[in-house]
């Protein structure tokens, strides 16, 4: 299935062709993605929906370079990332992708500031440059006054904002969000989704988000449905 928003003249940022993924369970190989075709242009905000086991998180992990496909082509900004070695993929992730998880996955012993600085440890920045950059990211998500707080001193919504700041701090082109509001109440979820929408609209971040929540999906520009490892439906907002 080709995306209606893709253009024949401009290459999409994410280009997926006949993508398959199989897991070996014991002696059996179980294919969870069956030849996915999908284009995601730069600046898109796409919600991946579908029932449990439909393969949406697997597809998200492949786009984020966290796992390798079993077959097909996965080209991001013209780069076939499935051909990268483990180290190359790590460097690519550091430069290109920011991750936001359902359970925030912050380092519990580090302050919000230090959590946000983590991805910058992989750069050549000095300590003060890292600190300045992290402060800007925290300010962007509205948590400048919570920089010295540890995760257990923050609410769920605040922790997710810190996670968003950490994802943003290295200025990646793609944000990968796995159920980013799954652990939050409606009001807080709307605030987080509004923030993601702002990052997409104002800063041009390409966002790929897995969600079960139809209300969350409404914040995306388009929604792609998967079922049993196949794209079954697509709708634009």
């Amino acid at each position, binding site marked *: 299935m080709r995306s209606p928003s893709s253009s024949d003249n401009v290459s999409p940022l994410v280009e997926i062709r006949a993508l398959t993924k199989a897991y070996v369970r014991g002696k059996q190989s179980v294919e969870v993605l069956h030849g996915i075709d999908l284009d995601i242009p730069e600046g898109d905000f796409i919600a991946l929906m579908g029932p449990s086991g439909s393969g949406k998180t697997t597809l998200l*992990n492949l786009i*984020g370079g*966290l*796992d390798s496909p079993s077959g097909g082509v996965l080209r991001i900004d013209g780069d076939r990332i499935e051909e990268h070695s*483990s*180290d190359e993929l*790590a*460097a690519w*992730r*550091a*430069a290109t992708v920011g*991750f936001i*998880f359902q359970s925030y*996955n912050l*380092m*519990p*012993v*580090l302050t919000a500031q*230090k959590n946000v600085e*983590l*991805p910058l*440890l*992989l750069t050549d920045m000095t*300590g003060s440059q890292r600190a300045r950059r992290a402060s800007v990211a925290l300010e962007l998500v509205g948590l400048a006054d919570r920089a010295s707080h540890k995760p257990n001193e923050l609410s769920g919504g605040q922790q997710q904002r810190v996670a968003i700041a*950490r994802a943003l701090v290295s200025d990646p082109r793609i944000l990968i969000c796995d159920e980013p509001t799954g652990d939050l109440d409606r009001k807080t979820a709307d605030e987080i989704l509004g923030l993601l929408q702002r990052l997409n609209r104002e800063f041009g971040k390409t966002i790929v988000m897995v969600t079960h929540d139809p209300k969350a999906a409404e914040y995306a520009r388009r929604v792609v449905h998967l079922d049993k490892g196949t794209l079954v439906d697509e709708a634009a907002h």
Partner: protein
Amino acid sequence: MRRRTDGRVSVIAKYLPLVLSALLRKKTRTAFTLVSLMMAFLLIGLLQAVNSVISGGAEFLGANRMITQAKTSFTQPLPMRLLPQIAAVPGVEFVSHSQFFGGVYQDARNFFPQFAVNPQRLYDTYPEWVLPEAQRRAFISTQDGAIAGKLLAEKHGWKVGDIIPLNSFIWTKTDGSRIWEWRLVGIFDGRDEEWSKRASLMYLNYAQFDEARVAGARGLAGVFVVRVADPMQSEKIAAQIDKRFENSADETKTQSEQEFQLGFLKQLGNIGFILNAISGAVFFTILILTGYTMSQAVRERVPELAVLKCLGFTDRSVLGLVLAESLTLCVLGALAGMVMATIIPPLVLPPEFPIRATADVWLFSAGAVVVLATAVGLPPAVHAMRIRIVDALAGR
């Protein structure tokens, strides 16, 4: 080179907070592990300090001096008539004789070694001891004279002219008494710092000792001290001495003074082996304890380590972080233990017990830390390196 060093420093400065934060994740557990490491290295440091004294402590002894003892044991005396025969062996410069006295001054806790010697022969064979000329002469001419090392005299507040009563647990006088009174006629010191540190023994005039002891024991010497002109010939001369008394009633065993001292200590058993065995047991115990702690710490942090990989940390950098964590933990604990092992002995031991955590002991401990950190850090580090991000994040 400078640039590379600066680079390493900046990498350490960059990642150290991350390493420390991992250690501080469970403060109580880390504190207990650090205390265990500290106690283990305190023990290892002290044991190795003792071992160092035993195995290397006699190195100051002269290579031109040998001890001739009875072949069966140094506790078996030799007849004094052997002395001129030993002196006649080519290459022998001086010979003296020495008999362990085994006296107790006031209280058994005050024990210090005393030897009955011929004063002039002592001076000939031990030029390392120095004392004023008048006192040298007084020791030769005073039948019940004794000289004491400076450290010993200072410890007990003795001065020349004092009468020192010693209760010998070996030698009985002809009158049945074991109390021997000795007139202190001189106080000797070492000719250099090394010998000064050992000036805590006492020499007694053999003439008085031999005359006053029970008749059956007279005319016997414990060992002979043989000074040779050329240390390179020591081995050959020792063989000649022993050959001279071969198949006689008084077979001898001649060896360097250093070997004799070590042999003396080894009468108590192979102390070096025992100390190393205890150190090994302590090391093994701390290895298991710290290894379990590190493995547990990494198991608890699998999702966090997976997140680091998500952010772009390579498998090798995650391996390096866990190894750095293990090294930091072991170094901090060992450092605290070794500092204590260095500070405590001089505070609690008298100066004549030269048990010190020397540079050799620190070097040994540094090696032990590297082995420990690698052994306890490598298995969890490899586990962390092999974490598959998607499995870890999914809780598999």
